[in-house]
């Protein structure tokens, strides 16, 4: 169960906002996390508490393909992102780096800065504890669920390679 305070953002939060490219050489998530959202909200990294949740409107994560974007968000201590829609490369990168994303327009509409949310990933439910409301996120396609269950794309592929190896022996 994920539980945390809402940090609310608007639309089109781009990857340069999430992590400026001057940090692209960093690879430690905790270091990256300190600079999360620096270009648009310089104190964000300091305000976030472990487990907090980002809530944003449309096209979250647009821009570059940098995989450090979801890594940075995780590194900052954020436990999930709820948005009306996600940019596609960011979506893939989040799945691959294990950052939970939930698409749910109503939850975004009804949640304000500082509200407390509880998220049940297996059920895809988002509970706004402050307002006592429950929402259901758009379910992942089956294929994506399979990837997540395998522990990510790399693990999924490794498992498949192993199976293929066994078969060919």
């Amino acid at each position, binding site marked *: 169960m994920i539980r945390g305070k809402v940090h609310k953002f608007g639309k089109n939060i781009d990857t*340069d906002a999430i992590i400026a490219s001057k940090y692209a050489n960093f690879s430690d998530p905790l270091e990256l996390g300190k600079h999360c959202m620096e270009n648009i909200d310089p104190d964000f990294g300091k305000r976030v508490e472990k487990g907090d949740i980002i809530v944003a409107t449309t096209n979250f994560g647009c821009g*570059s393909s940098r995989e450090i974007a979801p890594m940075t968000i995780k590194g900052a201590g954020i436990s999930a992102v709820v948005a009306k829609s996600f940019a596609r490369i960011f979506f893939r990168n989040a799945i691959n780096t294990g950052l939970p994303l939930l698409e749910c327009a109503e939850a975004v509409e009804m949640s304000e800065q500082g509200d407390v949310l509880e998220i049940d990933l297996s059920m895809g439910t988002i509970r706004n504890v402050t307002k006592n409301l429950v929402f259901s996120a758009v379910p992942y396609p089956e294929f994506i669920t399979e990837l997540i269950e395998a522990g990510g794309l790399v693990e999924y592929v490794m498992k498949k390679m192993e199976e293929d190896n066994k078969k060919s022996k």
Partner: protein
Amino acid sequence: MTLVEKILSAHTGKKEVKAGEFLNVKVDMVMASDLTAHIAADQFEKMGAKKPFDSQKVIFVMDHFFPNKDVAAAEQIKRLREFSKKYGILFVEAVDGGIEHVYLPEKGLVLPGDVVVGADSHTCTYGALGAFATGMGSTDIAVAMVTGEIWMKVPQTIKFNYSGKLPTWVTGKDLILYTIGRITVDGALYMAMEFTGEAIKGLSMEGRFTMANMSVEAGAKTGIVAVDEKTKAYIEGRSTRPYNVYTTDSEADYAAIVDYDVSRLEPQVALPHSPDNVCGISEVSNIRVDQVVIGSCTNGRLEDFEYAARVLRNKKVHPDVRCIVIPGSQEVYLAALRAGFIEVFISAGAIVGPPTCGPCVGGHIGILAAGERCASTTNRNFIGRMGSPRSEIYLVNPAVAAASAITGRLTNPEEVVK
């Protein structure tokens, strides 16, 4: 089927594929840069891979922080050079190098009908060649490097039909800025944009690369232009590999068809801080600029420098402006040199840098201070993209950039070239 569906179906061995389907697709080229390849390399080793699926189809191009902008970049590039040697991966650095999206097409490494994935969002540039090309993160790319396949969802296609002949000084850059201004930065989210019509026919390959390049700025998975005589002429002499030409069926299912009459379009400007914050050049007045950048994977090709040189010839850059010209590749640099463009730039007071992404990504060579403004031919004007979060970027075509360098404010080239 649409053009995109046909290319994807040919790479899965299925007779027919439909938008919305999840597929495992075979890839013809896998790319990563100095900014993204290190994570791909980590994942490659984590998977215990002994070699890439095909060493001629995996390429690392050093361009973002190249030539090494600091010790961290130097270490990264050194590691990638060694990694590439060890596993037999194509590695592009100084010798005959350039920005990945300029480099791959000009070396004939991407051809019509190919599926290309790259760990860079502007991989969609190659759609100008009638290929299916899209950007992903480093982990996805590592998997493609090892297996030669990648999962994807078949995108729907929006067809953009541009009718009319483009006026002077109006380029592919203006078409795509205009389009993004209309449909907004998530107007084509998860979709493919297919560019057609009289104006696209009339466009050079350079102009088409510019358009496909910025399709990602509308959220698209890719931008694509069907193959014609110009595409074939471009490939001539760059590759002898056979390729496949696909076209959209007449009864194909488009998500939408959008028509624009562009015969009276003027040069466009994307104002800070979003590529969809677009207006015509006549609608902005007296926006002073401190820096002008002409280059990048969007507008760093020969025709772009030809436009800029036509404006800057026998003129002087405004004394308060840094005008930075960066060829997209060594090949472009040499061609611009031979055509006399480089001399035009230097005589005008512009500075010419080595092929690199440089200022486009706020890396080096032209970082902006707080309060500074830049007219740039690049593709993103996000907050802080080129330096200080309090600087501003205005996206324009190369002729507008050059004209603005002369006057020190955003300027229609018509004003300075009589």
